[in-house]
């Protein structure tokens, strides 16, 4: 292909868009809606993933102390924890008395079950939060083992259940995202294919004449491929703009989206934006390619 023909092809593509603007407006609008649905999903997924990883990177442990430990030994233990684990933060020290009070409050009406007990059976405990070190979540198991070797420690417990549950949820959300994204991509492809098919039919006579005077198939096809790509790019751009506008509006209003407004709600980062834009342009290109394939078989 002669490179000097590129401006000619681009000009032809823009002329096609102009001539069939109504078809393109309808096509672009439908594409924008589809991309916006996908973008919204991506935005929610991104933030959900962010929050869960934010929580998941740190974890807390309950260190149950031996019966009869005095406050001096307790302080020594706290110092030992701080010295051995740089990411550790003592959240709370719960005395035996406090633990009993907490349990009474938690049981409410059922607190009667505790009345028959000869003494307070609950141990004193220390709640420790382990923050990520160098951006990595520390492995809880060796920490637990180490802590259990300290004098005065009866037992150490940590729960990863909730994390596992969230990670399971994220897997489901990710899978749903792939399915929704796939279905929407198919929808977008269908829209572009039909838009380009309509413009092809509207220029059927011109294409026939071009072929009769010696145009190669590619000479005819290239402007339509550019046309589809333009449609994809414009749709991608508008949908991103609409997504940002929606995000900015909701952020400004501090709207309570699923009760998550208390958390930082971020816009999708640059690589996601670029991906949406490129995928949209790519779908435009592939859609017009499919339309042309069918048309040129006729």
């Amino acid at each position, binding site marked *: 292909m002669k490179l000097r023909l590129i401006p000619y092809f681009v000009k032809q593509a823009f002329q096609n868009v102009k001539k069939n603007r109504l078809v393109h407006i309808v096509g672009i609008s439908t594409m924008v809606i589809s991309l916006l649905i996908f973008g919204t999903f991506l935005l929610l997924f991104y933030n959900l993933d962010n929050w869960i990883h934010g929580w998941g990177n740190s974890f807390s442990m309950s260190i149950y102390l031996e019966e009869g430990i005095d406050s001096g030994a307790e302080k020594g233990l706290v110092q030992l924890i701080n010295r051995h684990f740089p990411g550790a933060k003592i959240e709370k020290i719960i005395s035996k008395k406090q633990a009993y009070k907490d349990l009474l409050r938690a049981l409410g009406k059922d607190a009667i079950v505790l009345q028959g007990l000869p003494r307070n059976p609950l141990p004193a405990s220390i709640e420790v939060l382990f923050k990520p070190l160098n951006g990595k979540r520390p492995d809880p198991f060796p920490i637990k083992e180490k802590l259990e070797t300290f004098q005065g420690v009866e037992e150490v417990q940590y729960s990863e259940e909730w994390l596992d549950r969230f990670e399971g949820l994220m897997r489901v959300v990710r899978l749903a995202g792939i399915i929704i994204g796939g279905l929407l991509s198919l929808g977008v492809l269908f829209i572009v294919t039909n838009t380009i098919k309509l413009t092809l039919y509207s220029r059927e006579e011109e294409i026939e004449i*071009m*072929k*009769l*005077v*010696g*145009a*190669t198939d590619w*000479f005819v096809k290239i402007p339509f491929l550019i046309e589809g790509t333009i449609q994809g790019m414009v749709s991608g751009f508008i949908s991103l703009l609409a997504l940002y506008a929606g995000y900015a509006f909701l952020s400004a209003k501090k709207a309570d989206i699923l009760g998550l407004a208390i958390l930082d709600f971020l816009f999708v980062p640059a690589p996601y934006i670029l991906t949406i834009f490129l995928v949209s342009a790519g779908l435009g290109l592939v859609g017009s390619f499919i339309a042309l394939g069918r048309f040129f078989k006729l």
Partner: protein
Amino acid sequence: MIQLFHLFKNFGPNVALQDINLRIRKGDFVFVTGPSGAGKTTLMRLMFGAEKPTSGNILINGINLNRIRRQKLDLLRRKVGFVFQDFKLLTGKTIFENVALALEVAGERPSYIRKKAHLALRSVGLGKREQSYPLQLSGGEQQRVAIARAIVNDPLVLLADEPTGNLDPELTKDIMLLFRTIHMKGTTLVVATHSRNLLEETAQKQIILNRGRLVGSK
């Protein structure tokens, strides 16, 4: 220039052409004639590569159209001009743009396209109407635009299928005069017509078809 060997063309059960053998030399001006349904248009379309023969071979300037690849056929068409009875002009483009199209598809430079399209339109007497649209012109003028488009690439061969079929006798004479001028410049010309008046007035070679068979030549 054009050679046909044992050419057959069927459309389903209908036989359009049977065993046509023909040789048209470089620089010839030939009429293909015969009654309606004789196979003239089919023969012209086969020579243009718009149809494939059922059997037999067609050689244009030594190139066998049966063995040519699709892309090569597109390139060959730039050297074979075709004039249609219904002109096949794009009504949404000016006549200049219609003529320029044949050069644009060949990837020529814009300055060359401007010069050649202008010269082609001037040679058919429409140099001053370049910015007109086809529907603003008479039938004869539209046919002249179609001829300008067919010759703008300096084709080796010009094929014309019933080019005067839609024109009155005066305009027919104009078009025939134009063809003679093109022929005198060295282009091989094949004109399909069923017009007896046209044939009576000419001394050019005639190939006569009837019911798909070559039945004679003058």
